């Protein structure tokens, strides 16, 4: 029999209700804000002794003094004398708890004056309604952390049906920056999902956008700072303390094009880092992401549609242009525009196929400079290196490093990747049944105010309809109040790390009791408050440090590679495909080629991943005749004049 922790108490001024009750405890009782307790009723209701589960949301302590002044007077104003008093003044610890669950739940009655016990493991499961999804045979539980109170340490589980769909879905994490809460929590939770997502619910993969620094750049490397308490947490929660085994990184090139624009550029980690580059066709589908309404009026939109449907990737014939054209890259498109405008000028025409010359010039300007605005991501020559659409793997993690990208490029990447995920999940043609998309800095991409951008609309769409498709948004931000209400509102599960006091003062947190808000503002690293559809009140949990190398440690252990020369960049890229490629071979092979041509050849080789890398790469370069060193031809001897010819020279 467990020890009695306290007693429910009610007065006329402070009565209990069906939703809240008060209890007192001994001074040394292991109770605090967030502690889960069980109340045992004494009078049967409908033949059953009522059991009420609650979570402590407020605590009070007071003595029998009516005024602080009395204590001061009693000690003659000397605090140390008060401490030497023969007797400790009577003190009460009074707690207020919000009800988590009544058993039986009908009739719903005020909480009875019963004994209060610290909730044991089984009590915690019942209190949080986890018992429904912890049952063998219908288990859909995903551990999120360990609830601790006194000697109790109970695993807290989320319901996969409500975390990854279809009942509810999405996760939102809030917390101040710098405490490693948000990224760490997501890394931990992904590991937990991968370890516990039930087979019967299908496969699951994660796609993470690394939006700042090296946060997610070392998910496949083991952590160096897991201590015994972390390992105990992993063991208790049944999650292996190991890094992710199947991680692939994607990053656009730098504007110069030599290397990938990522902090994960150390040669030892290059084996699973691939370029992310798109050509005209990929970009044109999402032109509206980069073109605002001022850019694209109805006329311009019509011309873009025409180009997309009638010009790109097909043979295009027009009397004005003469020869048939095939536009496959930005270079082709620029040439097409240039030829069209010249022809119109030559024939003194102001419109072509109902499109005015000014509209044509405007669309040319807006479209062709996309490759400049998104240099490194968008290729002029149409080379494409993309995510493995249709071949996503179960328990695979796909990281797209956009940290160093300009805003336009980031928007383009978000828009295209998420749209592709949605379309392919709709067709069940992604390779997995569920994808968790992790987006940090959500307040930037789905702000509560500001213009209605394409990216925000897309995130709204995912948050509102994604759960039916298996497209799940895990989003994080420092200030939840600055994120669009519908995006955070649709997140079935919410995690809160340490919060800023100003943020906690916003209306979104008004439903939390003051003590809970205060606790939120003082949470330690590794502590979270969890809201989940099954939990009628938020619960505090502790989770272990992620079993992956942190970004900060990662960049120290795997420092960024120095900016290479063109030769070195080509060697690095090709050696991922063929270990026999050497610097000497590359130097010899590209000696006569232009830089653009070399980079194009590298891109095409990476895209094709041919059997014979060297031959393929060489074939992409224009044939040039090597200069032949000619021996000087012997010059004919100058005839000398007869020595006896006085008229000679």
């Amino acid at each position, binding site marked *: 029999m467990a020890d009695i922790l306290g007693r429910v108490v009610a007065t006329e001024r402070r009565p209990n209700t069906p939703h809240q009750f008060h209890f007192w405890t001994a001074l040394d009782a292991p109770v605090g804000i967030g502690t889960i307790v069980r109340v045992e009723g004494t009078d049967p209701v409908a033949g059953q002794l009522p059991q009420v589960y609650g979570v402590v949301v407020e605590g009070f302590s007071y003595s029998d003094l*009516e*005024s602080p002044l009395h*204590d001061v007077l009693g000690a003659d104003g000397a605090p140390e*004398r*008060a401490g030497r008093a023969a*007797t400790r003044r009577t003190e009460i610890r009074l707690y207020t708890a919000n009800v988590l669950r009544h058993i039986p739940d009908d009739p719903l009655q005020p909480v009875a004056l019963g004994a209060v016990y610290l909730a044991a493991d089984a009590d915690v499961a019942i209190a949080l309604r986890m018992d429904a999804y912890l049952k063998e045979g219908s288990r859909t539980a995903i551990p999120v952390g360990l609830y601790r109170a006194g000697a109790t340490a109970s695993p807290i589980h989320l319901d996969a049906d409500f975390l990854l769909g279809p009942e509810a879905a999405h996760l939102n994490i809030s917390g101040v920056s710098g405490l490693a809460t948000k990224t760490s929590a997501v890394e931990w939770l992904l590991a937990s999902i991968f370890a516990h997502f039930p087979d019967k619910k299908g496969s699951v993969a994660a796609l993470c956008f690394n939006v700042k620094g090296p946060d997610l750049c070392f998910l496949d490397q083991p952590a160096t700072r897991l201590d015994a308490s972390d390992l105990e947490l992993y063991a208790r929660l049944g999650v292996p303390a190991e890094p992710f085994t199947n991680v692939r990184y994607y990053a656009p090139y730098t504007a110069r094009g030599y290397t990938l624009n990522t902090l994960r550029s150390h040669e030892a980690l290059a084996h699973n880092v691939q370029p992310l580059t798109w050509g005209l066709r990929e970009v044109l589908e999402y032109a509206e992401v980069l073109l605002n309404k001022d850019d694209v009026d109805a006329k311009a939109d019509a011309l873009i549609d025409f180009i997309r449907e009638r010009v790109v990737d097909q043979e295009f014939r027009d009397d004005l242009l003469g020869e048939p054209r095939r536009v496959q890259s930005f270079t082709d498109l620029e040439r097409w525009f240039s030829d069209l405008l010249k022809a119109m000028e030559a024939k003194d025409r102001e419109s072509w196929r109902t499109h005015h010359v000014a509209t044509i010039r405007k669309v040319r300007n807006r479209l062709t400079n996309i490759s400049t605005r998104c240099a490194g991501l968008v290729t002029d020559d149409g080379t494409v290196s993309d995510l493995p659409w249709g071949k996503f793997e179960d328990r695979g993690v796909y990281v797209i490093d956009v940290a160093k990208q300009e805003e336009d490029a980031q928007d383009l990447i978000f828009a295209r990747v998420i749209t592709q995920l949605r379309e392919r999940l709709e067709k069940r043609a992604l390779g997995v049944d569920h994808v968790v998309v992790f987006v940090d800095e959500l307040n930037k991409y789905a702000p509560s105010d500001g213009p209605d951008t394409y990216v925000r609309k897309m995130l709204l769409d995912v948050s509102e309809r994604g759960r039916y498709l298996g497209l799940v948004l895990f989003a994080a931000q420092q200030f939840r109040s600055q994120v669009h209400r519908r995006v955070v509102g649709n997140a079935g599960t919410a995690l809160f790390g340490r919060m800023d006091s100003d943020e906690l003062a916003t209306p979104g947190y008004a439903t939390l009791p003051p003590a809970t808000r205060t606790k939120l503002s003082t949470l330690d690293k590794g502590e979270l408050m969890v809201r989940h559809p099954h939990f009628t009140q938020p619960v505090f949990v502790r989770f272990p440090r992620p079993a992956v190398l942190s970004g900060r440690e990662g960049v120290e252990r795997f420092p960024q590679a120095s900016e290479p020369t063109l030769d070195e960049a080509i060697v690095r890229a090709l050696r991922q495909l063929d270990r026999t490629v050497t610097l000497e071979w590359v130097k010899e092979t590209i000696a006569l080629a232009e830089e653009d041509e070399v980079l194009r050849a590298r891109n095409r080789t990476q895209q094709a991943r041919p059997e014979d890398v060297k031959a393929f790469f060489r074939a992409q370069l224009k044939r040039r005749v090597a200069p032949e060193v000619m021996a000087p031809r012997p010059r004919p001897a100058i005839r000398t004049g007869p020595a006896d010819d006085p008229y000679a020279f």
Partner: protein
Amino acid sequence: MTADESLGSAWRMAESYAPRAGGASVRASAAILRGLPGASVVSVLGVDATAPSLESLDPAGGTPVSVAPASPLESGRLETRAVAPAVTPGFTAFLDGIQRSVVIGQLGGLVPVVHGTVGAVVRVRRERVLSTWRDGALVARALYLPLTRLDAATRAACEAGGIALVDTGEEGDPAHPHGRLASARLAIQRAREEAESKLAMAWCAAGGGPLYVDGSISGFGEAALSPLAVGVVKSHRTLYVPAPDVPLLAGLAVGSRTTAFAVDARRRARIASWYLRLRSGDGADPFSGLVRVEIAESAFSPARADDVSDWVLAERQPVALPDPRWRAMAYGIRDCEEYLRAVAD
């Protein structure tokens, strides 16, 4: 053996959250009397637990003031002595009792029916924290009235309803209703003193350690002879100093005591006593902040008086505020009263 067993079955231990022990409450008693069939000799008033008690209406209970003779024990005349400040608290426990009397009806129109609640408790101090000794407080509730005036039906109903009846006899002035009231109140006071006495004797028999008793110990029988019981009297309606020495007593400095004297009352034990100034007076009452300490005469010595005075002085902190008697009250006694109010009222 529990305190319950050792103190007799008439006393029942009161527990928190248990059905009210120690007899029927004011409300229950009134309800039983009101529910009697037909005409009863008792006319029940509309009272409940919140009704003002006789003690709150007249705290002194009509006790007259007096100056009583006392035999000096330390010197021939009353002198004052400074007491060294205490270093270590000497008391192990505190004993106090409460009483509450409420008129709930009238018998034949002139004889008040008084509901009395008495309680006593020992609170033990361990590591500066007070807790209840043994199983709890002694609590008893009863109706105090001249039983000869009660008809058989009412008496039977009371007994059936668990109402204890205490006969106040025909004491007091039957011509004046207040005389009956005084009789009832005196009986209740005796019941309270009896409860305190039983607890004090039990404590001293158990040899627990020095016991701080609120009030006189002279009526505590065996306990009054024990070196463990120390009585601390806050009221001074009877002064045990010669009239010329009253100004000396009124001007006693804080932390000083008088020389000891013996108090010998009728039907009570002879005890050693002295005055001790805990705090300066409040200006209105020269004896405010003054207490009279009692110990068994057999345990008395000047050194013992100094030690006990030290201990009593050490109990000035924490201050017993917000109790209005805080200048002369130890916090442990306030704690006893708070406890009794919680379980007995």
